[in-house]
């Protein structure tokens, strides 16, 4: 976790700054006609509310395992594609890059589809948590679609909060 994500590292978690060139070079190859880079950054204002900084915490070994799963899924769904996902952990300042997802495909339509699939999966499946530092305190950010892509567990969902 301490080292930067390097070129040709397809899936990577790091506390170091993410590098746009490194992740793009990882997916470029001769039969790729289109590549798409998604870049998630720390936004200062969300619906008018201010963020001071964000801290990301991960379960690293499982996060890497799921990144690889997402990559395999994409290569099956969009043949000829390559995917790299670099995710930052630790404390991030406004404007810093939290996640980079690079996808290359023979044609651009697939690149858009694959990239959108990748970011939705990253948001709903990777065991990574985001703590927001705001002027009125710190809190763990929750999203509507958390856990969505992880193995469905009806027993769990049905019992809900009441059981414990």
């Amino acid at each position: 976790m301490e080292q930067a994500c390097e070129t040709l590292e397809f899936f990577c978690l790091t506390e170091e700054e993410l590098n746009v060139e490194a992740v793009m070079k990882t997916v470029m190859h001769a039969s790729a006609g289109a590549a798409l880079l998604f870049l998630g950054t720390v936004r200062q204002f969300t619906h008018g509310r201010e963020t001071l900084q964000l801290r990301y915490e991960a379960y690293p070994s499982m996060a890497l395992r799921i990144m690889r799963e997402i990559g395999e899924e994409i290569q099956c769904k969009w043949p000829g594609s390559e995917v790299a996902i670099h995710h930052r952990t630790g404390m991030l300042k406004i404007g810093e890059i939290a996640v980079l997802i690079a996808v290359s495909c023979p044609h651009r339509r697939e690149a858009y589809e694959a990239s959108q699939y990748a970011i939705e999966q990253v948001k709903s499946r990777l065991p990574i948590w985001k703590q927001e530092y705001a002027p009125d305190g710190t809190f763990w950010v929750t999203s509507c679609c958390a856990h969505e892509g992880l193995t469905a567990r009806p027993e769990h969902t049905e019992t809900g909060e009441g059981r414990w």
Partner: protein
Amino acid sequence: MVKVLLFAAIAEKTGRREWCPELGQGTVGQVVEQLVMRFPQIRDEIGTCLFAKNERVVDQDDEVGHGDVLAILPPVNGG
């Protein structure tokens, strides 16, 4: 011995990132129940968590035993 990993709000509220239940083996549900008895302050959060045994999400009925790592996963939020 089962090792339990705690993250995010659960780690914060318990003040721990790892915990070992007395239970040598049993179901995921039993281990989680023991965890909540030991740290009642996570009673609200636990209902929103998933559980991963050795990095794979499992049901509460799943068995865990010696050498298994059980991770308690609050709602995830990558990206």
